């Protein structure tokens, strides 16, 4: 493991992280549900690549295992599950989110700036790629904003998963060898089960409410 490969890998990771952020912003803009799911799959793929690079550079085989898990779970299984759900419920398009395109872009920009400001004191810490922490925070904040802005249940689930991607990125970036394997597996299974439970609920909501518009769920007041 010679010096230049670390140099190259950190620059590569920075590039991939920035790409992930770009995908996130695209997600905010995109209206079609199916393309949203594909964008999420792409973002998870990038995350898997980053994990692979870290594993290669530090020879930490368990991070590689995480990369493979991410690849199987988040790139293949979950998007397939969501697409099947979308086709069965036959709703294609997000009608009109709360905030229009320009406003949401502006807010995402502001949130990214905020995450850079918050992450500034920790630059000394990051070893691999100097912007992975701010990107992780940005992914978290924009993901939350996306959840608030969208009406469709599926999009909210997707937004939740992007924040989860941000969290995995932070885990890899901040800790040189990643977290202990037990924790990784625990987290991964929880995410998968969470999505399955969400799927069950979405299906039941679809049965009793004829639409997937979450803003209709406001009977419980006070």
């Amino acid at each position: 493991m010679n010096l230049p490969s670390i140099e190259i890998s950190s620059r590569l990771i920075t590039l991939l992280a920035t790409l992930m952020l770009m995908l996130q912003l695209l997600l905010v803009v995109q209206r079609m549900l199916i393309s949203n799911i594909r964008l999420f799959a792409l973002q998870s793929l990038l995350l898997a690549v980053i994990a692979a690079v870290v594993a290669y550079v530090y020879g930490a085989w368990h991070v590689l295992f995480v990369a493979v898990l991410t690849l199987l779970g988040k790139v293949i299984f979950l998007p397939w599950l969501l697409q099947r759900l979308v086709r069965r419920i036959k709703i294609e398009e997000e009608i009109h989110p709360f905030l229009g395109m320009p406003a949401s872009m502006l807010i995402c920009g502001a949130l990214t700036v905020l995450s850079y400001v918050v992450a500034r004191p920790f630059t000394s810490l990051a070893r691999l790629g100097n912007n992975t922490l701010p990107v992780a925070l940005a992914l978290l904040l924009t993901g939350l904003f996306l959840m608030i802005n969208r009406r469709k249940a599926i999009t909210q689930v997707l937004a939740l998963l992007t924040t989860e991607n941000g969290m995995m990125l932070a885990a890899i970036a901040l800790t040189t060898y990643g977290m202990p394997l037990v924790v990784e597996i625990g987290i991964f299974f929880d995410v998968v089960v969470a999505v399955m439970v969400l799927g069950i609920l979405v299906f039941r909501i679809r049965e009793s409410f004829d639409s997937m518009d979450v803003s209709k769920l406001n009977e419980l007041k006070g």
Partner: protein
Amino acid sequence: MLLTSILLIPLVVALLCLVARQRILLTALNISGFAIGLVLGLKLFRTVLAREGAAVTEWGEFLRADALSAWMVLLISVVSLATALYAVSYFRRDLAAGEVTAPRVREFYVLTPLFAAGMLLVVLANNLGVMWAAVEITALSSVLLVALYNHTTSLEAAWKYIMLGSVGLVLALFGTIFAYAAAVGPSAGMALPSFNWSRLLEMAPQLDQKLVKLSFIFVLVGYGTKAGLAPMHTWLPDAHSEAPSPTSAMLSGVSLKIAVYALLRFHILSAACLGGEFSQHLLLGFGLCSMALAGPFILTQKNLKRMLAYSSLEHVGLICAAIGVNAPLTVLGALLHMGYHALTKPVLFFAAGNVQQHYHTLDFRRIGGGLAHSMPATALVLGVGAVAVSGLPPFGLFVSELTILAGGFASGNAWVSGVMLASLLLVFCGVLIKLARLILGPARAAAPPREPVAAGRTVAMSLPLAALLLFSLWVPGSLLQLLELAANIIRRTP
């Protein structure tokens, strides 16, 4: 083997219930499982006392139980046993009334032990990551419990519960990672630094201060959402009022306190690393905010179970604020308050369950009043429970609240006790007005016929109340010693 057996019993019960068919078998499994859990809990309580507060560890420090977690294990097992006892008659009536189908009841009997197991894992896990996963398990199992009935409102409550819960948990995970990252810095030379709380506590002074602050903020917002602290509490009234009564008893009685327990672990860490002020002020602020917010909602409340949910919001706020004040008396009072509240709140939800089954509504206006005439036993239990939850003398909550207030005065921040007393007064007035109108008054013509006296159900319902009265009048010395040990852990005094 003690800790693992405490964890395994509910899991085994859950698996068996998957297989079992008849309802009698399911109830027997559940009740016996939780009874054994309680016995083991008491055994753990005695062993921790015998070891003078040194932690009981198994699987190489993977499972760890110190005085605080022993107290939590006791609360979980007591509440789940009470719930299981009450659920017997509750679901018999629901099945008879066709409110719920047999498979759904079986789903309840599978998920409840899973829910209890999740909570036990949270308090016994030493590894912060595993603790997070355990909280996730409790969240997932309780979501399906909330969505047990197929009404649109319970689906809505479940959806909000899972979405807000997941957001909270993602933030909590962020906080956990930052805490872990703070440990990576100083232990660069060593291999993977252990994620165990006990090890992190030993290394606390060397941790990276800025990262620990960031981690506490994320954990506070994350686990605060699960604990129902003020601005993040919005899911609490929906989930607790739409879930079946046994589940809302467990949710309100103890699952809020599990999230507070998780928050406390990080509070102890950040206090060890940064010195108490930072996390104490935050806890105090959020606690007082929750207490202040509960009042107005109860004063204008229209639904009985939502009112009880807001009352839980207020009590959790009181516990957090008391720990935020961090005086010796207030922390002891907070722990005592957790115990008494865990015994009181389930009784109220059981009574509310009876009212719901009898009147098929929980809306004060539609029930109208005269509960004392149509449901004498439930009205009595509801009345006595309300007296207890409002912190009136014969019951222990008065003693714990006054201990907290006295602690606040003794440690010099009298204004905190003043704000607490004001919000307690507001909530008392709200609860009194609503329940007086509900229980008292002449028998209503429109009310359904008088409730047949079900001796079994009344006993099951008022068992925790009898325990509360017993422990209000006589707090055993050993229990007090355990609470002092737990208080020392929280305040980090040897």
